[in-house]
């Protein structure tokens, strides 16, 4: 057992970050997500005819989602690999890869290490600091799950009422929410540096080319792969911008 090597003040964090209990929890999170997906897939397939979706369209949507996720998933995997020395495989799999996100978890880990006057990596990053940072980023992340658990039923009650009162609300609200959120996220990135701006423009341009080609040449697969191509083109642009 790795327990023998556990030492709060040791800067060799390997025994703790690879601890069997953390591995078991990471596996548990994976299992729950797979269970949920199976239950949802069966429910969706059953309900699909009621809203005029054919089985082929359901399968097609699963495929579209899968293909669209290839680019982001590889990117997340790449980021996750780069964080392995800092947090270890089970924590990275469960927190950075699933459930959480690199941006939140790394920030949260940094903040909680700071409450002990320590920094991630380096001579102050002991087993104890890792344990504290991991616990704090995980519990912090639970706030999202908890508020989703509590707020979703409340919001759907309001939503059902709105639909009855005014159907036009439900036509405008989701579109406005989606576009408002994406434009804000995008503009926030643009401000960070000229390279960020160029990366985003390259990504948009690549997507435009994909959409135009998909339309002109009737290549519907290109629309699905567009996001993946755009990410590769944009990251290549970013790489050459920053390397130059």
């Amino acid at each position, binding site marked *: 057992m790795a327990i023998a090597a556990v030492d709060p003040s040791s800067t060799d964090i390997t025994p703790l970050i690879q601890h069997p209990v953390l591995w078991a929890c990471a596996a548990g999170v994976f299992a729950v997500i797979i269970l949920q997906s199976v239950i949802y897939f069966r429910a969706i397939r059953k309900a699909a005819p009621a809203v005029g979706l054919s089985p082929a369209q359901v399968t097609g949507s699963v495929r579209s989602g899968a293909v669209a996720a290839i680019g982001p998933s590889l990117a997340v995997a790449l980021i996750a690999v780069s964080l392995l020395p800092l947090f270890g495989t089970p924590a990275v799999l469960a927190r950075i890869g699933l459930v959480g996100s690199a941006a939140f978890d790394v920030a949260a880990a940094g903040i909680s290490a700071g409450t002990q006057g320590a920094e991630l990596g380096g001579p102050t990053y002991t087993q104890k600091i890792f344990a504290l940072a991991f616990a704090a980023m995980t519990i912090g992340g639970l706030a*999202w799950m908890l508020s989703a658990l509590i707020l979703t039923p409340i919001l759907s009650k309001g939503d059902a009422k709105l639909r009855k009162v005014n159907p036009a609300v439900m036509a405008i609200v989701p579109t406005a929410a989606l576009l408002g959120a*994406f434009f804000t996220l995008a503009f926030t990135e643009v401000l960070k540096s000229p390279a960020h701006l160029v990366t985003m423009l390259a990504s948009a341009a690549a997507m435009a080319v994909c959409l135009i080609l998909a339309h002109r040449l009737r290549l519907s697969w290109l629309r699905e792969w567009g996001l993946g191509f755009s990410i590769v083109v944009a990251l290549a642009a970013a790489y050459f911008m920053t390397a130059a």
Partner: protein
Amino acid sequence: MSTTTSADTAAGLSAFDRTTSIWGPITLALGLLISLAAALYAAFGSGMGITPVELVTAVVAVLATFGVIAIIEPISYFPILGRSAMYQAFLIGNIANKLLPAAVVAQANLGERPGTRRAELIAGSAIIGAVLIHITTLTIFVGILGTWLVGMLPAPLIATARGYILPAVFGAVVLQSVMAMRSRRTTIVAVIVAAVLVFVVVPLVPSLTFYATALAVVITIALSWFTRSKTPPSVVGTAPAEASPPHISEPTR
């Protein structure tokens, strides 16, 4: 599209709502409990000598920074995802960079806008597809090959991916969303609101940084509502036929 009576539709959807309103919360709560167990074990079970006060201090510091976002995000994403997909999204994570784009692509392929029951089922399917890929890539590249890859990948490549993944995703997704939504008015409103918030308001009031997305969502919804086209009598359940520009994302299936 199959022809179904409204009774069939109601029955089919109420079965779906029953399943998701039971199993959605159960699976999300299970994920929560397992994560909590891991956190408590790391803090107290691993012999690190962490005191409850130290843990609370660290958690409070994290929540002071992110707590409000944790409440705002579910509210912001609800209108886009719909009830059933909320439980998927907040169990799986990586929502803005992966799950929303996947849902948007799938909805665009079938010519559906978010907000309808049909769109909800398409989003659910797309998220399942995204999960399949995500779990597979994580298992292979991080779980199995991860430690080996750490030594193999050139550092600049990792740095580029870490630093520029968000603009790389958003450039394409924003364009695709605009094409798929086909709503010129709402697009213009969203661009103006987001630009004013990000380029003017946040630089003036930096404490609003973490609320920018939520503010944008709320203000865009309000302004889109008040500036909506009121002239054509709207077809039940669909948007008024706004003057949509010639678009290139015509659904082919």
